[in-house]
């Protein structure tokens, strides 16, 4: 069936999250960008309302923590659709602030997909109380970003423990996180088969925070370097347990999380682009040149229209990827398509919309200047645009194993 109507739950989430984005998130965004800080009071309020990073929790109409399930009365799973619809609205509020909302963040999906029942209870359970807590995802290293298989952080078995050594960089909420999912290798010669994911708790001896990055955009979001020096992690904190890594599963687990997180990140790009588009429409209607609103000049109109339809196309690609995930269809290609297209579109659109707003476009108080700085990284993290195209290429071209 082709049906573009949002379900009752989807529509409720959309409206509620939009209300929050407009009334709670947007008003603090510029200040948070300037100070690189987010007020605690705001974070507490979000927590109370059940709005967490990367997921809509039960109280907010979803069902559970982290990447929990949500299903309608007939039991039709719609977790991913609800998540992307919520993510678009949140990012519409502000793309940086939302990355700091308390919750498991990008650390949630690997625990969900790979964790044992005990591990899920242990790590996701901590978000149930009233404290402000975060989780994080530590994959990237100074020497391995896109080339995930090339990570150098080592995990050496020692009795009931693993000893971790290495460095992680660009980790969102890495410093404030209660725990971080850290990817390491037990045998570098085995490539991906040697990879293991551990949950490393804050305060573990040998685990420390390095520098906090200064960035072009997303300044309200913390990006940290993490250092592991003879950091001992108990074998119970090996995500999924030993068994999980016997087949090809281990690495695939890490990759599988992308099938649901990439559409989410893409949805955020849609939200930012839409926010900027709305600002530009407003602006060009109210500002005049030679006696007519600049929106009435063909060149400007054309640009607005092109932005609008590409944003819409991005959204539909996101919805499709989420729909497939909910239906249990393999969607790695479609998830990458949504991310590749939505991110590039958003970068293009922001650049165009800053242009139509002229000087106002580069002034800090009009938002688009900030979003222009924020958006670029959406084409970089969660797999660069090139990496998305590698994923797609391998799925459309016969016998293509690597480039």
């Amino acid at each position: 069936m082709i049906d573009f109507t949002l379900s009752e739950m989807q529509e409720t989430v959309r409206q509620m999250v939009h209300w929050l984005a407009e009334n709670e998130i947007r008003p603090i965004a510029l200040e948070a960008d300037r100070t690189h800080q987010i007020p605690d009071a705001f974070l507490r309020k979000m927590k109370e309302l059940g709005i967490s990073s990367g997921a809509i929790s039960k109280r907010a109409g979803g069902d559970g923590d982290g990447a929990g399930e949500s299903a309608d009365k007939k039991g039709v799973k719609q977790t991913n659709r609800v998540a992307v619809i919520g993510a678009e609205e949140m990012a519409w509020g502000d793309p940086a602030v939302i990355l700091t909302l308390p919750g498991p963040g990008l650390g949630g999906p690997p625990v969900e997909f790979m964790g044992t029942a005990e591990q899920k209870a242990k790590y996701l359970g901590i978000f149930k109380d009233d404290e402000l807590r975060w989780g994080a995802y530590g994959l990237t290293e100074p020497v391995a970003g896109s080339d995930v298989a090339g990570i150098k952080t080592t995990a050496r078995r020692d009795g009931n423990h693993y000893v971790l050594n290495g460095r992680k960089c660009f980790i969102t909420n890495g410093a404030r996180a209660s725990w971080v999912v850290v990817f390491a290798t037990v045998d570098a010669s085995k490539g991906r088969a040697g990879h293991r994911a551990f949950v490393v708790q804050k305060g573990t001896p040998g685990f420390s925070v390095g520098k906090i990055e200064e960035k072009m955009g997303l300044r309200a979001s913390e990006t940290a370097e993490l250092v592991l020096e003879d950091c001992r992690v108990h074998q119970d904190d090996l995500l999924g347990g030993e068994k999980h890594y016997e087949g090809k599963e281990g690495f695939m687990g890490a990759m599988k999380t992308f099938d649901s997180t990439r559409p989410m990140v893409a949805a955020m790009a849609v939200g930012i682009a839409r926010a900027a588009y709305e600002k530009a429409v407003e602006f060009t209607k109210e500002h005049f040149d030679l006696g007519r609103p600049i929106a009435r000049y063909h060149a400007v109109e054309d640009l607005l229209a092109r932005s609008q339809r590409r944003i819409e196309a991005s959204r539909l690609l996101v919805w499709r990827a989420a729909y497939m995930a909910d239906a249990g269809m393999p969607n790695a290609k479609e998830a990458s398509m949504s991310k590749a297209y939505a991110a590039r579109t958003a970068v293009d659109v922001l650049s165009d919309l800053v242009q139509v707003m002229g000087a106002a476009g580069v002034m800090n108080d009009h938002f688009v200047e900030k979003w222009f700085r924020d958006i670029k990284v959406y084409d970089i993290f969660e797999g660069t645009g090139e990496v998305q195209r590698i994923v797609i290429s391998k799925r459309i071209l016969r016998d293509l194993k690597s480039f």
Partner: protein
Amino acid sequence: MLSLGLSEELTAIQGTVREFAAKHLRPKLRAIEKNGLGADTRARFAELGLFGVDWPEAAGGQALGLITRAVIEEELAYGDVGAALALDRGGAAAQLLLALGTPDAHAALKRLLDGEGHAALAAAEEGKARDDFRTVAAKQGSGWVLNGKKAYVLGGATAALRLVLAQVDVGQGLAGAGVFLVEGANPGLRAGKTHTTLGLQAVPVHELVIEGLMLPLAARLDDQVSLPQVLRRHYDRLSLVTAARAVGLAAASYEYARAYAEERVAFGKPIGHFQAIAFLLSDMAIAVDAARLMTWKAAWAFDQRQPATADLAGAQAQALEAAFFCANSAVQVLGGAGFVQDHPVEKWMRDAKTLALYGQHAQASHAVLAAAALGRPLDSADLFPLPSLHASLS
């Protein structure tokens, strides 16, 4: 609830049309481009019983909605877009009749459905520089007499049914124009020169010379309706059909280039294994899917009777962009082989450019989109975009 898979019924229709297109259109596309569709191909398509599926029952159709039409047109155009255009006996004229929606218009559609001929819309005029049409209709006794000249009429010379747009009230622009129905041959109307076109050559494009064309009073079809509004609805429907064909063309180009890139070897490996080619193919795949989703969404909105003008215009612009991007890229991927006529991609590139000029062209659809976004009324340029460049049937 948000759901993006085709129903079983639509999947079945899609399969049928895909098979037909693979068997009867793709293998003959050069012959069809040169000589038009053969009677045999037309007959086989007629057997499928798909003509008019989206028309209302009052017009003899099956009321299956634009979504069904979108699926069919995409598959036909996947076979070959020129053939898809030629197979459409209703063309833009049928869309205008549907937009009129009067009992007379429906009756004309029924006759078209029952017959075997095709319809043509004579709207555009060469060098039209003002709002009025130069073709005029004057009341004379108990009828009309029309005089003037129409340009870019697709299938104009041989049509069984023609709609002619002519000025009734001089100086009133579109609001003072009328739609006139001409069925069968008429001594007041003859074909002028045949235009040679860049692409979509399966359907010839003619000039129509109108001299003392006598018509009964009832030949005017827009008496009870507002022509600007009718034309808007006409473009809405037409946009969807164009969008669906553009998606088919884009998909065909993508798939052809993809398959070629797997086989063609350079520097010791298939060219598809070079990133420059593989990434380009990835972007083509994305463009196709994005355009298809936009097209489905617009068709769905129209079928739901939601205000769909902006969606339809957006879908058309997105799909035409995808079509040219994919066809152009396909030629690039094939290299020299793409430029010669042993492969269909050079044709599809010409067709893509041409498709973007028939009906509501790309700039006009952006104007329509922007009007919706800015909350401004559509002006006559949006309703009847650049008439001098406007080809009348697509």
